[in-house]
């Protein structure tokens, strides 16, 4: 299974830090039964911006990603530096269509600077790898898992991302094998 990974271009100050996308691509190939294809960056759709919330709508972003997917790429993961939300929730780290074609990961809240702390590149890369594998897991059909170390465990605080591992637990791995078969 090929998964296309690409950056969603945003204003300069919200760009995805260097090194994040290669780290994500490596994690995807290490932890999931996929091959990664690097795709050309896309402009983030301006219509997805909500000025009142000063955030970008994840469903609107996904819609635009789906519309611009190149032929021959069955699934794709967009990466952005802007903060995402869905209307019901105050924010999301990412969103993906369950067993679908498109997903998106935001690194905005994965950065220590977001919480007023000094930057930590290693920690950012570690979190980015986990979130990429998590959203790609949804694309492959995995749902949230209650196993503490599993990458598919739901994280609603950044500390929870730090606690989990970057690979699926044996049960999710078995489910992946079933789905792939």
């Amino acid at each position: 299974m090929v998964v296309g990974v690409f950056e969603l271009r945003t204003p300069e100050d919200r760009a995805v830090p260097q090194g994040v996308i290669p780290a994500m691509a490596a994690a995807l190939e290490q932890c999931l039964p996929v091959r990664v294809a690097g795709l050309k960056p896309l402009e983030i759709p301006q219509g997805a911006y909500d000025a009142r919330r000063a955030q970008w709508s994840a469903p609107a972003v996904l819609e635009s990603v789906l519309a611009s997917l190149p032929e021959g790429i069955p699934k794709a993961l967009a990466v952005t530096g802007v903060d995402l939300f869905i209307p019901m929730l105050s924010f999301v780290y990412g969103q993906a269509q369950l067993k679908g074609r498109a997903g998106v990961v935001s690194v905005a809240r994965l950065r220590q600077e977001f919480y007023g702390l000094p930057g930590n590149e290693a920690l950012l890369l570690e979190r980015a790898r986990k979130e990429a594998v998590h959203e790609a897991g949804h694309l492959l059909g995995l749902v949230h898992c209650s196993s503490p170390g599993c990458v598919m465990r739901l994280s609603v605080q950044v500390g929870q991302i730090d606690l989990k591992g970057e690979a699926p637990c044996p049960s999710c791995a078995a489910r992946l094998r079933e789905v792939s078969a």
Partner: protein
Amino acid sequence: MKPQWQILVVDDEEIMCESLAAWLREDGYLVDTASSGREAVELAKKTDYAIYFIDLKMPGGMDGIDTLMEIRRLHPDASIIIITAYATVDTAITAIKEGAQEYIVKPCNPEEISLLVGRIIKVKRLQRENLILRKKLQRRYQFHDIICKSPRMLEVLELAREVSSLRSTVLIRGESGTGKELVARAIHFSGNRAQKPFIAVSCAALAETLLESELFGYEKGAFTGAAERKKGKFELADGGTIFLDEIGDIGPKLQADLLRVLQERSFYRVGGSEEVHVDARVIAATHKDLRALVEEGKFREDLFYRLNVIEIQIPPLRERREDIPLLAGHFVERISHELGKPVEEIAQDAMRLLMDHSWPGNVRELENAVERAIVSCRGRTLTAEDFSFLRNNGAAKIQMPDNLTLADMEKLMIEAALRRTGGNVKEAAASLGIDRSTLYEKLKRYGIER
């Protein structure tokens, strides 16, 4: 994976519906969406969702509160979460009054919604487990699970079925081991009190003062060791049934207290001055002849008539021998399964032995005999050899002096059984084929120390 739980999201804004649905689907739930109250009600008619997320403000004549009320009518146990873009105390109160379980303001923190859904599903799972366990209990004690075909026993069950939904006191009479408690449980679980507690108390097992605090509870400081208030069995059985086994063994003070509960439906805890009201149906049982005890002045006549509103007499097993093959077959099936031994049937010679035995310990003795035979059985069929202990009964080993009475004999047998079991009353009662409470009563009567 939680694929069995279904959730319905109702909002006129499609993006709101779909994005929340997608987020919940990632959590493993099966999620449907509806864009209006009417569509939601139509879906709710076809599916019993575990949770409903309903937006408060919806156009089209049916807003969130109307939708909530209609869904509440269809599914009284549904968990409904009202969502709105802004919070006012009035709308929150209205929603909760109309039966919403929670009220959330969008956008809400992902943690909040994740905890909320997790908590509701946890309660639903427990409710489902509880329902399954209750059904199992009911099945176990329904009348058709009392194994019999003899006309006398069928009459007993018919009477028990007729009285199951009444509140009247029932007195069950029968020898030890005939299944008095089983009939009492069947009455409880077939009637309209089935969802409430069934509390069984063996009146012979406890000294009178202990039995009093056991039945009526006590207040803090009522006696040494009463460190805090404790509810008695009557309070615990409120709304349900209290089964008083071996009622013929209670003393005069308790007889008076019990009469008061039956007349007034209220009592005082030991050491208490506050009257406690209860609605517990009383089913009493005894192997004694209460009428004779009344005539001897050992049992209050007024209490006897209060208890004896409906009398059920269970015949001993020797008077309904046609039930023996059925019961034995049932015990083979159940006990072999419990012990994990593949015993399937009883040979003809073994069955003849069972039919000829006098069964002084009644059905319980038969059950114990089958269990003992299964333990020693080496094949798939129980043979007469496996039941050889019924022929001996150990009687030949006892040296009988010339002037021995029946009571002396009983005392000797009880002492021998206690010696064999190292003073374990439960095991001694089982080996004698009598109920534990009956053995306690006999220990008291003969003054036997354990």
